[in-house]
């Protein structure tokens, strides 16, 4: 018995396969492109290959993320909030607050006994999401992955006064031309994002354990900045990108097991992966 969670985010698509004891069999991440359906098929194929499984072996599949309706082989769609809460609490049983910062939104979740009880989110303004770092990294000509490390070398933090990503981009250029050091500017950028995340989290109330997930959690500079802004310890999973897909897989297992126990019929989609032909002729 195997279960799958597919999380199509704005920036990355993630697949997690687990067995009936919730052991991880395979995890795959790929950048989300314009062709969600093709991509869902492709990442699923890769995940199955990694686990040496066939699509028929998967008992139940849950899709989540903003592209969750574009997973043709998923048996059910569940919101990313529920999936994140489930995924995070499976890794950190004592979690009470989870913050997920993605490329397109930031979510703060209150969790009790592994269930989501409340949340606040920002999907209105890029300046409060990972996009803020993506845009400024591009302006500074550095890799997104390198930003955090460089920011930790700062000798002082330059305050970024712009509240808008586009104006911050311009402010960064002005700071560079004034001869300010890259690491000091970066420290300021990280603090600017952290203070917005902290303001969002405070609206919900923060209780330990606090877990940070999403692509931004891979940035060591952001973990530092949020820790300072909130003044509390932060736990980060080994694979912070995968908690949504993991939660989806665990929920898939739960739904399936419940149906087995109650004897209810559980409809599933055809176990067939379409051949992924990216940017096929008909699309040109």
């Amino acid at each position, binding site marked *: 018995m195997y279960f799958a969670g597919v999380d199509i985010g704005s920036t990355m698509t993630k697949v997690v396969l687990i067995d009936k004891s919730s052991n991880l069999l395979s995890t795959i991440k790929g950048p989300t492109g*314009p062709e969600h359906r093709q991509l869902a098929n492709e990442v699923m194929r890769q995940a199955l290959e990694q686990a040496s499984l066939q699509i028929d072996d998967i008992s139940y599949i849950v899709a989540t993320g903003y592209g969750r309706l574009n997973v043709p082989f998923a048996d059910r769609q569940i919101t990313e909030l529920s999936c994140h809460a489930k995924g995070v609490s499976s890794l950190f049983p004592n979690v009470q607050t989870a913050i997920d910062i993605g490329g*397109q939104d930031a979510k703060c979740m209150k969790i009790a006994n592994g269930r989501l009880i409340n949340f606040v989110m920002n999907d*209105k*303004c*890029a*300046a409060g999401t990972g*996009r803020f770092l993506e*845009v400024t990294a591009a302006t500074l000509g550095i890799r997104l992955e390198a930003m955090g490390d460089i920011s930790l070398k700062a000798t002082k933090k330059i305050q970024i006064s*712009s*509240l*808008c*990503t*586009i*104006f911050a981009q*311009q402010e960064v250029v002005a700071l560079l*031309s004034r001869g300010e050091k890259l690491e000091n500017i970066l420290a300021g950028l990280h603090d600017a994002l952290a203070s917005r995340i902290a303001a969002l989290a405070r609206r919900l109330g923060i209780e330990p354990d606090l877990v940070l997930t999403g692509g931004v959690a891979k940035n060591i500079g952001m973990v530092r900045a949020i820790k300072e802004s909130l003044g509390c310890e932060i736990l980060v999973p080994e694979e912070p990108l995968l908690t949504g897909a993991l939660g989806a897989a665990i929920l898939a297992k739960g739904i399936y097991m419940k149906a087995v126990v109650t004897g209810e019929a559980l409809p599933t989609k055809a176990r067939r992966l379409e051949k992924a032909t990216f940017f096929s002729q008909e699309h040109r």
Partner: protein
Amino acid sequence: MSWFMGIDIGSVYSKGVVTKDFQLVASHIIISGANYRTSAEAIRTELIKKGNLTEDDIANTIATGSGADNVYFASQKANDIVCTARGINNVFLQTRTVIDIASQSTRVIRLNEEGIVTNFTVSEKCAAGGGRFIEVIANVLRIDLSDFGPLAAKSSSPITFSTGCAVFGESEAITRVSEGVPKEDIAAGVNKALASKISSLVKKLKLEEPCAVCGGGALNIALVKTIESELNTDLLVPPQPQLITALGAAIIATTSATPESSEN
């Protein structure tokens, strides 16, 4: 010695005018660039050349705009709200409300019968509230800023942006382009989004007619039309609307250099 100069150093464009007897003699616009000081110098040189003047002919120079400090040859700095008010008052004497759509922000100013500023409001520190949103989307659509208005005017079904953020709006525009949505509908959608933000800014101050619009955004005729229908009023658009604030600076340069008695 009866010529006056107003220089408005903005975040994107720097504007300068020379006036004589409150009438425009010469104007010049350049991209502000990285060095505002040299931009200010370049404007002065060009204005003097265009007006067939010498440096000594300029009786007084006033600087305004976010980069006003860099105009080292100006006798004084003047607040840009006051300059915009003076400038519009010089063109449309009766104006009671003026909307100044700049790249960085949109400002709405209320004037009394004497043309004195009674109240004003500035858009939030967000690119989606000013002309920058148009610049960003023009870049996505690969069109010239000056073509934006005429293109948008062709649209019969403008798209609705699901976001209030210029960064997310950029992604949304890219998605619409890839879906094959006509460029004019995207451009018109941007105008619609911006017009609704600007209109709520105007409503915050309460609209009093006649209302004028200036700043680079006023060059976008389709945007002006969209704001007109949102506010249900006719807007006065001056010729060369982007020069109004610089013009106001030149007017202030005139009145502050001339004894009060000669002002009448």
